[in-house]
């Protein structure tokens, strides 16, 4: 019987396998950041252990770094300590660090692919749930907690119960690919299968709607696999994948011979079977806007807020969840999405802060100003993205429109650094989570694509970007 792509990667990384038990899996790349690693390094010290493969371990700082002028000292003492701790840990254990002033600093899931560290067919872990992003390159990429970070640092392996393969087919062609984006595809998937729809699985995204996407768009899709509850998401590598990774700073020297082996091997066999399947036709999908407090609470920009009964379809807890969400979001059923006014716009995060995201958003705002009651910011995903965008003059387009143009980091996606919403503020955000308080206590998040966020900034409320000329 044929094998799925996931099963092929899994089988080639088994160190120990026993019946009815998790397997010990070899890890090819371990990405480390400042927030989920300190206790792991401390554990190594207490037990007098070394990092087994410092050469396969790469660190950066992203979650808690300021996105303002980096020549100034960090005022928050605990943040400053967290950053210094990573510097010391990397020095003590011999790990390559892209520190706060490195030209390669950035969100860990943006820099991995950009530097050619992420490779097809590999296993990648990081103490961050959005590690699933790297699956866009045909890697098995898993978010892990701090205990597992310590386990991988010490052993370059981790125990893992074998997830089940889940096929999501994205079929058809979008009529307006500049207005209906990868973000809208993945939000549509989560809206349909639910935030627990992928639990215990590794999703493989397939079909014309996926192969049509650029690598940056594929990363947006795989990034949000975790929001559907999946352990990981992946896409079989193709020529676009191989072209993207060619000639990057850390691309292996024998790259072309690797490509030859990947081409034949890294795809699901035609007779492979999946435990679960879902198909999304995309010919007619609309831009998506989340209205609630999890990414499954999402609707078309042309729709109005559903009633809790309409949303829950008879499920009592879903109904309660929708009622609480509407209360928290201060929204009433029946309100048109396009009538929702916003206070803030955040273009950033590991979901949507790559160069292509910024290019697309800049087309919307060129020669325009943001609405006078809106505060808006762009936080590029990495310093390299920022530099490339500046070389193209995108920074000027955003600044002229009254956007703030910041340094790279996770920023307002998770509200760890000073970039947060005030209580009650409503934000059109290109990030991945609209949880209560995620972007700051009492803050209200609507998840959208970069073009939808940019259009909301200009208009002061959500608008259907299909009505705009984005070519």
């Amino acid at each position, binding site marked *: 019987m044929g094998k799925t792509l996931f099963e092929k990667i899994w089988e080639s990384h088994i160190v*120990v396998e026993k019946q009815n038990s998790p397997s010990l899996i070899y890890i090819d790349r371990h990405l480390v950041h400042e927030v989920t690693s300190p206790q792991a390094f401390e554990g190594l010290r207490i037990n007098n252990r070394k990092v087994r493969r410092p050469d396969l371990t790469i660190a950066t700082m992203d979650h*808690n770094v300021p996105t303002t002028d980096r020549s100034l000292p960090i005022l928050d003492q605990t943040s400053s300590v967290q950053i210094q701790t990573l510097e010391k840990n990397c020095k003590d254990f011999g790990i390559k660090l892209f520190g706060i002033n490195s030209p390669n600093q950035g969100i860990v899931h943006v820099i991995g692919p950009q530097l050619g560290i992420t490779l097809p067919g590999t296993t990648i872990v990081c103490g961050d*749930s959005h590690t699933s992003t790297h699956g866009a390159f045909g890697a098995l990429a898993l978010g*892990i907690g701090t205990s597992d970070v310590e386990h991988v640092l010490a052993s370059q392996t981790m125990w893992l119960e074998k997830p089940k393969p889940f096929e999501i087919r994205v079929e058809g062609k979008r009529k307006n690919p500049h207005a209906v984006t990868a973000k809208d595809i993945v939000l549509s998937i989560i809206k349909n299968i639910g935030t627990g729809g992928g*639990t215990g699985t590794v999703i493989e995204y397939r079909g014309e709607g996926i192969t049509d996407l650029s690598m940056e768009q594929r990363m947006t899709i795989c990034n949000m696999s975790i929001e559907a509850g999946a352990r990981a998401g992946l896409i079989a590598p193709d020529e676009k994948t191989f072209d993207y990774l060619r000639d990057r700073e850390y691309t292996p020297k024998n790259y072309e011979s690797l490509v030859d082996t990947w081409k034949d091997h890294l795809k699901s066999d035609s007779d492979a079977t999946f435990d679960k399947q879902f198909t999304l036709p995309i010919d007619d999908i609309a831009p998506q806007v989340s209205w609630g407090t999890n990414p499954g609470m999402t609707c078309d920009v042309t729709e109005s807020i559903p009633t809790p009964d309409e949303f829950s379809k008879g499920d009592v807890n879903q109904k309660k*969840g929708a009622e609480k969400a509407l209360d928290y979001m201060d929204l009433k059923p029946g309100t048109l999405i396009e009538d929702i006014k916003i206070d803030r716009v955040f273009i950033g995060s590991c979901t949507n802060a790559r160069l292509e995201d910024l290019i697309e958003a800049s087309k919307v705002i060129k020669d325009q100003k943001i609405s006078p009651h809106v505060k808006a910011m762009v936080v590029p995903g990495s310093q390299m993205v920022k530099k490339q965008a500046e070389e193209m003059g995108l920074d000027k387009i955003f600044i002229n429109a009254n956007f703030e143009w910041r340094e790279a980091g996770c920023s307002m996606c998770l509200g760890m650094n000073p970039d947060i919403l005030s209580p009650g503020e409503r934000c059109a955000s290109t990030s991945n989570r609209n949880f209560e308080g995620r972007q*700051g206590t009492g803050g209200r998040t609507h998840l959208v694509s970069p073009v939808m966020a940019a259009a909301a900034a200009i208009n002061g409320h959500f608008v259907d970007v299909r009505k705009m000329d984005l070519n």
Partner: protein
Amino acid sequence: MKGNVIKYDRDNIDTDVIIPGQYLKIHDYAELATHAMEGLDPDFHSKVKEGDFILSGKNFGSGSSREHAPIALSHSGIKAVLALSFARIFYRNSVDGAFLLPIEIGQDAYDGISEGDEINIDVSSNEIQNITKNQTYKMKPFSEIIGKIIAAGGLFKYKPDQD
């Protein structure tokens, strides 16, 4: 293991409400615990007692991989979370660090147990006794290795080669 239940009758309790992002710089677990559940229930810290359990719906612990979430609950005194289902990273983090027991329950336990009920969790028989209401429910047994990691007191105390 006996204790009283704090019930959150909803699905998708995420790790951002269990421990909001702004506290992820805190490395002192006792201090971290003072902010547990703050995003959802600001009274949690004042009402939680050592040995309490949390009961909730589907997909508990969804979202971020922050191990701070089970740590904050554990250091608040929570010994187990009973839920209809768990997000996998939260489940694993809970077990890895032996912070608390993630117990998957059925609809009967979810509906039967109310806020404040005293219950007894018996992992050896996979039963939950509701002492307040004199009812008994089945819990989903831990898989073999999860049971062993729990029995050993966490991932780093578990020695697979002795199996």
